[in-house]
């Protein structure tokens, strides 16, 4: 069976609109060194490196593992490169965990990044064509359909935007800092893709995130391990008439497989904190439902009641989430490492008191790629 794998080190860069102070090499190395320092290890201790990012076209460097291997201390070692669209950061973490769980590699450094200022994300997200609808244009009709089905009032999206941005103020790495944000400001901000306002949308960020994953003795000796209790991925094809784009079957089945693998039967009660991939505000209630945390049609009520706030009974995106920092390829890995921060008790001002089980999630493509993991403060926390 799987050898237990733990997150033993976490590193992040400052997320900014433009990190003009570092090269791509400098960006990934900043996160990698921070993770190694946190783990009290050096590059020499690393057996393999797994990197992830969204399309190479975002920076114009093909197969960047080839040029980044020196900066990541990977020369003479295996370096592996994952790409699963927007879910890639979480997929990369999961692939790295598989290296450890296989028993073949003891210590794996995993890094995900994007330097969006080097390119044009809207162009890339439109499949390399100009005049595309980009992500917001793709998701807006599905959000409208969610609102129609659920009867959710229009202020739900505004509440999510305010909550996540106020959480972000507590996170020293956040890109967006809007301490004076209010529901009124969100509502009055420009409409981009009805019903998504400007302040309900994720930014384009530069940044990198890294983790050191370990098995065996190194995991057991770690001062602050976050144990990877389980992970799951599901993918479905892009489009066909029977596909439910609001509640994709791949997302439902991914969550169901994940919960079953770790023995979770009541996710809302058994999970203490969640980092969900919410690039547009309405995806908070949509994923609460689409990942079986709330009944269908009930997710928005969790948001409305304050259940997803930092002091609620199911805190979501305490770090500020994708709405506050979005280096695309890293955004999923940030969800994974923020979940680990919560169960390690290292989340600082946005720590959920007593968090022992945390969920991380990312999605990508046309809401068709899903990658999720659950971390715990001990291996038997769910027993």
């Amino acid at each position: 069976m799987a050898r237990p794998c733990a997150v033993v080190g976490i590193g992040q860069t400052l997320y900014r609109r433009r990190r003009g102070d570092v090269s791509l090499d400098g960006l990934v190395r900043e996160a990698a060194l921070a993770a190694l320092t946190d783990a009290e290890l050096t590059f020499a201790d690393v057996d393999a490196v797994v990197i992830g990012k969204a399309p190479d076209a975002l920076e114009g460097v093909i197969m960047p593992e080839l040029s980044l291997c020196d900066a990541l201390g990977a020369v003479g070692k295996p370096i592996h490169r994952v790409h699963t669209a927007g879910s890639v950061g979480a997929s990369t973490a999961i692939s790295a965990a598989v290296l450890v769980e296989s028993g073949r590699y003891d210590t794996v450094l995993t890094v995900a990044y994007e330097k969006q200022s080097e390119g044009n994300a809207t162009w890339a997200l439109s499949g390399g064509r100009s005049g595309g609808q980009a992500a917001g244009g793709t998701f807006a009709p599905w959000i409208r359909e969610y609102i129609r089905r659920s009867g959710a009032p229009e202020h739900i999206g505004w509440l999510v935007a305010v909550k996540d941005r106020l959480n972000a103020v507590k996170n020293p790495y956040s890109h967006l800092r809007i301490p004076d944000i209010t529901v009124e400001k969100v509502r009055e901000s420009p409409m981009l893709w009805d019903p998504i306002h400007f302040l309900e949308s994720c930014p384009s960020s530069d940044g990198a995130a890294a983790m050191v994953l370990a098995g065996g003795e190194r995991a057991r000796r770690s001062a602050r391990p976050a144990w990877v209790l389980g992970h799951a991925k599901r993918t479905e094809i892009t489009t066909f008439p029977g596909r439910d784009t609001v509640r994709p079957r791949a997302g439902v089945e991914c969550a169901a497989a994940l919960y079953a693998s770790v023995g979770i039967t009541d996710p809302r009660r058994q999970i203490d904190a969640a980092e969900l991939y919410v690039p547009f505000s309405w995806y908070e209630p949509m994923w609460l439902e689409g990942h079986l945390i709330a009944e269908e049609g009930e997710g928005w009520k969790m948001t409305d009641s304050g259940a997803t706030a930092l002091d609620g009974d199911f805190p979501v995106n305490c770090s500020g989430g994708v709405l506050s920092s979005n280096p695309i390829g890293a955004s999923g890995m940030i969800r994974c490492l923020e979940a680990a921060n919560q169960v390690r008790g290292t989340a600082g001002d946005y720590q959920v008191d007593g968090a022992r089980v945390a969920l991380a999630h990312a999605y990508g493509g046309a809401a068709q790629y899903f990658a999720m993991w659950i971390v715990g403060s001990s291996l038997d926390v769910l027993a």
Partner: protein
Amino acid sequence: MAAASASSAAASAPDFPDIAVVATAQTPAHARYDGPEVHLIMDCVDQLLASTGLSRDGIDFTIAGSCDYLSGMPFAFVTNVDGMGAWPPVYESHVEMDGAWALFEAWLRLQVGDVDTAMVVGSGRSSPCNAREVFHLQADPYAVAPLGLDPDALAGIQARSLIDAGLASESDFAAVVARSRAAAAANPMAQVQASGAVAVADLLAEPYDMAPLRAHDVAPPADGAAAVIIATAERARELTDRPVWIRGIDHRIESHHPGLRDLTDSASVRTAAATLGIGPAAGGGGGGEGADPDGGGTAGLDVAELHVTHAHEEIILRSALGLDDSVEVNPSGGPLGGNPVMATGLIRVIEAADRIASGRARRAVAHASSGPALQQNLLCLLEGDG
């Protein structure tokens, strides 16, 4: 040192489950295929399902390797999942690497123990682009890419360094091409179908392209796909009478800066080979997990399928792997006979596995490469039952 730590990790945990290749498929290497890439993938998937009798939901894990840039379209790989049959939803992943690296991840995934079958796909269509222009963007974007050094130019520098070091001659390069083309003539999947034998002297009469390399020294990019199904031991026995066991996979990278490397050798291949218990350091009967208990020449290898996209690379790889003349190299014709980029490395595994499954070899090494001048290299050690 990385090799030592990986080896010791393996040695301390001897209970790794056996994993086997149970079915293989590949399309011909098309100089230009005008249909969609997803169709090439579907052809392979259909072949695999037919040959194993599996239904799509009988495959636990799916993983593919491809390169968006070949299509000139970010997220090009997303449409490929249609060809892999991702409905109902599947447990799936993707590497922006040759399919051989997807196999590496699938092989590790099956060792975790909770899933038993995996489908691995590699695919690419090079014909829509100018591969040399595209792949020059692999280089370090600050110091190297602005020089316009594409992989073929760097290959020319590497070939020159071999000649300057007295390790090879242009005739040696031509001999690699002649032998590859002769072998490719018998391979229905090959792109370069020589009409009869090609003489070394005739090849040497051709003009230079990237001196000292000539156009025929460079594998022409092709369109194509390849796929395999691998399975854990018990499942493998159910799915085929001739499982081909994966005795180990290891890959290593070298510095991105050509000036920091000894271009006449492959340090990464030597490290990977030592980790697998083959290669000159292992001396045939060495102590690695892949070591052949019978000993014998070149770790008992019968066949080596090598990812040679420039003729001189075969000379470097033979040396780094310690291959003597008893080992048949690229009996398929190798990439010089057909190079569907992003599937080419996985096809090396397929060609080696097919020769073992058909009883023409017992033990083989397959090699895949990424990056200019053999920067990153993967070795897969394969063995038959008997």
